[in-house]
């Protein structure tokens, strides 16, 4: 099993450009998440999904959009990148069981994004 994979690993954008980050998991997890990690900070939740076709906002959703067309994939889009979005982005997934997403989250390797 590959677990959680992310593409690309690195990317440099100019302000105003758009891009999509792809997350894929092969563990048949229901729940998927996008986080950002900034220096000296923990991880902050951007958006999440509790199943195919459903998405919801986390604590820092502005400037991002997401889609979950297939259970195994979760896409994070930046429509018009800004320097404040320079960060490391992590995708995670977990089982969804009755009672909610209390189960352990498994993280991808991260995407390092720089916006000039």
């Amino acid at each position, binding site marked *: 099993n590959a677990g959680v994979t992310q593409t690309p690993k690195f990317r440099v954008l100019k302000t105003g450009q758009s891009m999509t980050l792809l997350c894929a998991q092969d563990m048949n997890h229901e*729940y998927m998440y996008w986080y950002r990690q900034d220096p*000296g*900070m*923990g*991880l*902050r*939740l951007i958006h*999440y999904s*509790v199943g195919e076709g459903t998405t*919801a906002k*986390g604590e820092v959703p502005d400037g991002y959009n997401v889609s979950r067309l297939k259970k195994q994939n979760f896409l994070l889009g930046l429509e018009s990148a800004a320097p404040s979005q320079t960060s490391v982005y*992590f995708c995670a997934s977990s089982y*969804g069981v*009755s*009672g*909610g*997403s*209390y189960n*352990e*989250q*498994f*993280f*991808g*390797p*991260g995407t390092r994004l720089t916006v000039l």
Partner: protein
Amino acid sequence: ELKVEQNPLFLSMQEGKNYTIYCNYSTTSDRLYWYRQDPGKSLESLFVLLSNGAVKQEGRLMASLDTKARLSTLHITAAVHDLSATYFCAVARRNRGSTLGRLYFGRGTQLTVWP
């Protein structure tokens, strides 16, 4: 909003010494995770603590959870260089009116172990 505080944020210790990292959180939760992150790498799960009084040990690391005090500790025994990394605690909480539980992360403790 659930707040998670880790102390210390930076820890430099000599090999062979013992130390404890603390994780305090602001509201009720009954599940807490500890993760390790090496520089430039992803997060690796270390421990899942599921109930009050839970204690887990793996090698030189031992984690405990006191839900009444809203406190978890990660104790390092006889530190070695290989333990150098950033350690995060993450507290699980279910959103009100939702079946989704979220993880709230502390800022991390950057541990450096020197000879």
